[in-house]
């Protein structure tokens, strides 16, 4: 064997994307069920139209933190104890465009755990003591976080990215202090009761269990289809936030893009990988692996309901700030002006195809892939198109998409440190 010769590599085979079964709760609210799973685990996600966009950030976020804070019959501790008895875990996620509550349990316990969870959410009374406890915790966390350069930069970025819209709002200490219990009760009444817009179940449950989930959830269904704001436009330009004692500076660079329904999405997604979304990306190779300015740098494209954005993020040594910004700018410029070499493009293609295989491994992964296109009214066929586009895309297409979306003068450039 000659160790210098790399073993022959093979193209990954076709992936069969499995969609969950769709069972309607009413004309606008679906339950998705992925039932083909060969073990005892199960997960239920429920989605409420109770995100940050529905009210003041501080109110939406305090309400979501207190969803399991107690009902008129049960204390918060009793609710948590009942879930623990069933070996169940839960997680609550809040974004601009919704609240997702996820429940994890063995399938024999999940129906009962779901009853406990749903009862707690529906009948939440936000007891005064629990409310004061969470409020104090949130205020303290806020103060601690305001000492993190990453948080300072991210807040400033959000203001520029969503400039002039509700999405640009960030909470301050005074907002958190001002929240009143009656505001939570009102927010809960308006956005959770009649705010359910989707349920997703993974697990080899019995048909009867699914029917039971539907029966006890039905009353919460939202009345009208969701509509999301789509006309965002970031405010370009540089902002620096000085923090004297910092030894690193956080960088956030980005601009408004679009979501998966846009014709440029697939190409932009591949371009983003080249720029900063894998270990061998241009940004990592240059700014970490060649210059050593940072522990890590990356770029992502992210989507909100009606829109999306590009974000480059890093924390660099304070003395390297200008050099790092120059290099990011240079890498964007190169992508707009030099055709990518075949060797690099082929590598990115292979990497992406391998990633596709990895992120579609197993029923939970398949459900998550499905959910991330379903919100845009698309089917899992999106991924077949994506794989086809990975095979087909060429250097000219990369150059074209870079020129359309990677102009430095369009970027909001934030630094904090």
């Amino acid at each position, binding site marked *: 064997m000659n160790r210098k010769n790399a073993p022959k590599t093979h193209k990954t085979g076709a*992936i069969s994307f499995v969609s969950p079964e769709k069972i309607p709760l009413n004309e606008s609210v679906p339950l998705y069920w992925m039932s083909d799973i060969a073990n005892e685990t199960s997960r239920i996600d429920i989605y409420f139209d109770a995100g940050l966009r529905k009210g003041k950030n501080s109110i939406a976020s305090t309400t979501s933190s207190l969803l399991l804070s107690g009902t008129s019959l049960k204390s918060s501790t009793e609710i948590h*104890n009942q879930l623990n008895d069933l*070996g169940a875990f839960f997680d609550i996620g809040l974004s601009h465009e919704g609240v997702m509550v996820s429940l*994890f349990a*063995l399938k024999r316990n999940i129906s009962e755990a779901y009853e406990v969870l749903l009862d707690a959410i529906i009948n939440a009374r936000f007891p005064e003591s629990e409310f004061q406890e969470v409020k104090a915790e949130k205020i303290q966390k806020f103060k601690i976080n305001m000492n993190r350069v990453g948080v300072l930069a991210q807040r400033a970025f959000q203001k520029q990215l969503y400039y002039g819209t509700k999405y640009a709002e960030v909470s301050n200490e005074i907002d958190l202090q001002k929240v009143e219990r009656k505001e939570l009760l009102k927010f809960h009444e308006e956005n959770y009761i009649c705010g359910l817009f989707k349920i997703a179940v993974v697990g080899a449950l019995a048909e009867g269990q699914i029917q039971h989930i539907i029966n006890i959830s039905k009353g919460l269904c939202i009345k009208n289809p969701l509509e999301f704001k789509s006309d965002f436009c970031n405010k370009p330009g540089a902002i620096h936030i000085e923090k004297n004692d910092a030894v690193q500076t956080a960088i956030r660079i980005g601009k408004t893009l679009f979501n998966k329904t846009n014709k440029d999405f697939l190409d932009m997604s591949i371009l983003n990988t080249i720029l900063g979304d894998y270990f061998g990306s241009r940004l990592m190779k240059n700014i970490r692996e060649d210059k050593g300015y940072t522990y890590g740098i990356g770029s992502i494209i992210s989507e909100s309901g009606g829109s999306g954005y590009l974000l480059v993020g890093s924390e660099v040594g304070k003395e390297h700030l200008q050099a790092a910004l120059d290099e990011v700018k240079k890498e964007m410029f190169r992508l707009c002006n030099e055709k990518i070499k075949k060797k690099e493009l082929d590598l990115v293609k292979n990497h992406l195809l391998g990633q596709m*295989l990895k992120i579609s*491994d197993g029923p939970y992964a398949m459900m998550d892939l499905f959910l991330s296109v379903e919100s845009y009214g698309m089917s899992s066929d999106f991924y077949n198109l994506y794989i086809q586009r990975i095979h087909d895309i060429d250097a000219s297409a990369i150059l074209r998409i870079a020129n359309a979306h990677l102009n430095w003068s369009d970027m909001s450039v934030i630094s904090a440190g």
Partner: protein
Amino acid sequence: MIEFERYTLKNGLKVLLHHDKTTPMVVVNTLYDVGARDELEDKTGFAHLFEHLMFGGSLHVKDFDQELQKAGGESNAFTSNDITNYYEIIPAINIETALWLESDRMLSLAFTDKSLEVQRSVVIEEFKQRYLNQPYGDVWLELRPLAYLKHPYRWATIGKDISHIEEAEMSDVKKFFKKFYCPSNAILCVSGNFDSGTIKDLIEKYYGTIPGGKKPARLLPMEPTQEEFREKSIQRDVSADAFYYAFHMSERKNIGYYIADLLSDAIGKDQSSLLNIALKKEQTLVSEINAFITGSLDHGLFLITGKLLEGVDFATLDNALWRELEKIKVEGFTDRKLNSLKNKLSTAKAFQEQGLLNKSISLCMFELLGDANGINEEIQIYNGIENTDVLNFANSILKRENCSLLKINKTK
């Protein structure tokens, strides 16, 4: 139940195979029996710096990551006080690429000056990002030398001080490699959808000819039994006072480890844990309180940490905390609490067993402890724990003379 096959190559490399035909991927996981505890006192942070250098090219391969990415794979690694672990996740059809790359860097690194120079900077930035530029970031740099006086757990994996990393030289790198990076000091686990008929031949092809080396002897100083309460108080530019109580506990192999794991969950994992109810909800002294264990292979730490609410002082918290601990030492848990902890563990275990990478790392860890099948026996050990075990454990560990307390005072 996780099925696996185990054998040893002639050069001493331990191999574990776990076949899972439900996935299109394979994971190649390599655990080296070396961590920060094996470092010299004046060259700390080295095991971790070395982990970075393992990606800087090997004897026959210039660019590790690039070759792996070409084959659709990805890779990462981590270093702890006990071990250094590397893995590749790759489409099963390209398994050979992962074996080629991982075996070549076990054979020898390229040792380029550029790689050392750049990774020194990268690790220094990591030091800043994780430990210096975060509120409470340097807690472990302060707490370890307070709790440990002799054992090398007294420094963190990142190192005692940035200067140790700045001063690392190529000769140190080469010595380190020669001593610790050889088949006889490693465990390889290949899991996923490999071809059962050819996998052993492939492993033999890539690893069989690597000189076995000698497994280094480990003679670490024992931490003497703590006999007095220790306390350290420091001031930092943070907005809340914070406390870290650290108690010495048993090593990983001891039943005490499992009891400590359950006990820490019971008193400080979530909102219904005992200390959360008593100190946060009822007495409103803290904004958060947590209990957890370090999970170390040698004698580890059982920690209770949290942050004081505005206007509460350390002495009030201290009194209240010890009152609660004394209660636990008399009452232990209710049956309901003990059962719910075991039920949660069963759920967590079932979810973990779905992750190929998770399984691979666990198999290697258990093999390092003596038997990879420990992965299948763990849950019975937890299920066998009774209230009397908890009481005995709490009474032997949660004592003032076995405790070190670090207090972080906010800037006024």
